[in-house]
């Protein structure tokens, strides 16, 4: 067990080092950082001063080491476009993305489980067939089209909800939150639905198929024979046993929610890190791209590691398998 954990952690560190190498290579070799930072009018002294200041006059290995050293401390240099510390910009933007991701994750989880249970119980009902068909269409649609559709419906036609931005935000220390104002909450609705819809359908389909599997088991029939209420059977006996795979998938999907937030944030001009990243690509702002890459890899690798370890903790069968290998 301990062996497995150590091996898994070492693997994760290795992945991060490789991603760090990619990020460093991007930073160092894509275009000339000096060219990017200084405009047309520059003197040789400027170039030399900046070169020394950025440490570009040292060997590549020293530079990689210094890059990693900086990255660990959250220091990714200065944005080419905004001329400010990248870490500062990201710290400003991250609450928006995390709040959006949290709300859409919650939306996906609650509605996904609810609809999954519903469609499994009323297996051949009209409503559940309609939901299943709709979900198929929802999965095939690109996220940004769903976003545009929602904007058209609720902002342009009905005028109920705002179509862009976060509304009013309240500053709590360094964290800016949209949870405390009405306009902030209203602004959250459309982006969270857009972002969470795909995950919702995924969870719904998973819960449905797991529920159908479980409802066929003998202990459910026995519970029914005992005369338990249908509600108690469905929720207390059946749903509980479907939750392990749901937790795994939800955990892994957390990463993709943050990645797909890039698209949603662009559609709704949501001032989060995803929009920052897209703008960075458009303007080839390499330090911001590198920082985003590192940030998101740490999240992804962390989530994967946590899910793997949790899985081993939950399911004893995996533990013995790990030993026999």
């Amino acid at each position, binding site marked *: 067990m301990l062996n497995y954990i150590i091996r898994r952690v070492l693997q994760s560190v290795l992945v991060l080092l490789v991603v760090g190498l990619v990020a460093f290579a991007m930073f160092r070799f894509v275009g000339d950082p000096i060219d990017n930072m200084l405009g047309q009018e520059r003197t040789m002294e400027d170039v030399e001063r900046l070169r020394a200041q950025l440490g570009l006059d040292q060997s590549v290995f020293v530079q990689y080491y210094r890059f990693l050293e900086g990255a660990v401390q959250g220091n990714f240099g200065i944005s080419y476009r905004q001329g400010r510390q990248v870490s500062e910009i990201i710290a400003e933007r991250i609450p928006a993305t995390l709040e959006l991701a949290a709300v859409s994750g919650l939306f996906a989880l609650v509605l996904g489980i609810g609809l999954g249970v519903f469609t499994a119980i009323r297996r051949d009902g009209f409503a559940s067939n309609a939901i299943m068909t709709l979900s198929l269409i929802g999965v*095939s649609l*690109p996220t940004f089209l769903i976003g545009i559709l929602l904007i058209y419906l609720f902002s342009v036609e009905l005028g109920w909800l705002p179509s862009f931005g976060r509304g009013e935000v309240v500053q709590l220390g360094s964290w800016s939150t949209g949870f405390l104002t009405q306009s902030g909450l209203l602004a959250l609705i459309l982006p969270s639905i857009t972002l969470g819809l795909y995950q919702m359908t995924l969870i719904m389909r998973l819960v449905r198929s797991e529920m159908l599997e479980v409802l066929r088991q003998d202990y459910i029939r026995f519970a029914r024979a005992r005369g338990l209420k249908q509600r108690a059977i469905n929720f207390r006996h059946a749903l509980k046993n479907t939750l392990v795979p749901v937790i795994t998938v939800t955990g892994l999907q957390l*990463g993709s929610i943050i990645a797909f937030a*890039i698209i949603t944030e662009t559609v709704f001009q949501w001032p989060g890190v995803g929009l920052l990243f897209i703008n960075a690509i458009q303007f*080839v702002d390499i330090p911001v791209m590198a920082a985003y890459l590192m940030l998101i*890899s740490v999240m992804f690798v962390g989530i994967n590691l946590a899910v793997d370890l949790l899985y081993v903790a939950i399911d004893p069968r995996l533990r013995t398998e790990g030993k026999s290998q």
Partner: protein
Amino acid sequence: MTDTPITPEKPRAQSRLAIAWDSDVGYSFRHSPVAMVSLCLTLILVLSAVFAPLIAPHDPFNPATLNLLNGFTAPGEANAFTGESFLLGTDDQGRDVFSTILYGLRISLFVGFAAVAFAMVLGISLGLLAGYVGGWTETVIMRVADVQLTFPAILVAMLIFGVAKGITPIEYRDQVAIWVLIIAIGLSDWVQFARVVRGATLVEKSKEYVQAARLIGRSPFAIMARHILPNVLSPVLVIATISLALAIIAEATLSFLGVGAPPTQPSLGTLIRIGQGFLFSGEWWILFFPACTLLVLALAVNLLGDWLRDALNPRLR
């Protein structure tokens, strides 16, 4: 009678079609209205993209034929200044929306097909290599695949696009954007192919025909390409169809986000990006028609892929 040719060219081609029609897959196709409709839609879209220059009433990229006065003409209505009318209206620069959609479809489909082809070639070769050679090669290839699979494909494609954009000089960026897009989407998608091919290769490798080929001294390359490859291709077909739908959506997404096809060579995604700007000012058709085309395309290819997966999957039969 003996000297009549046994298999003349034309009947043979027909009989092949007939064989396909009578096969299990053909049977499943005949009994699936969804598959038939989506195949028809896909074919219509592909054909209209291929013959776009013949079908399109205007050349949207020839400035000589454009008239700015035609801008913002509503679908089917005559323009107030020039009296010209357009089937699906015009955009802000007076380009015929119907024609831009046809040309956009061309670019979307081209990028989609090319990206999947690239991913397929890369994935199949690496998968074969990993499965057949094994050892150190396999470890490296599959490790890279695992790491890449941790990240969503669209994110990988964005990063590759961003880096490529940084490497190319500014004056060439728009020209190479389409190719960069193909490479970015292809590189983000090879893992699926490599995994499946490797798995199938591992199974095939231990079979007798491979041992026989090895005994008679065929080179490893010949064994991989001529003996194993034909036997691992059928799952690849399913993945390719599903990948095509994903690649089309990925391309549209990237172009919509402004990190894909440039406005000089607009794909459906770029057109939607342009159209979104007019959503609030009432010119709905600039957004609506490209969005609908993309929707139908994505849905049709997706459903086709789903059907093919079910039809070819022996477990479900």
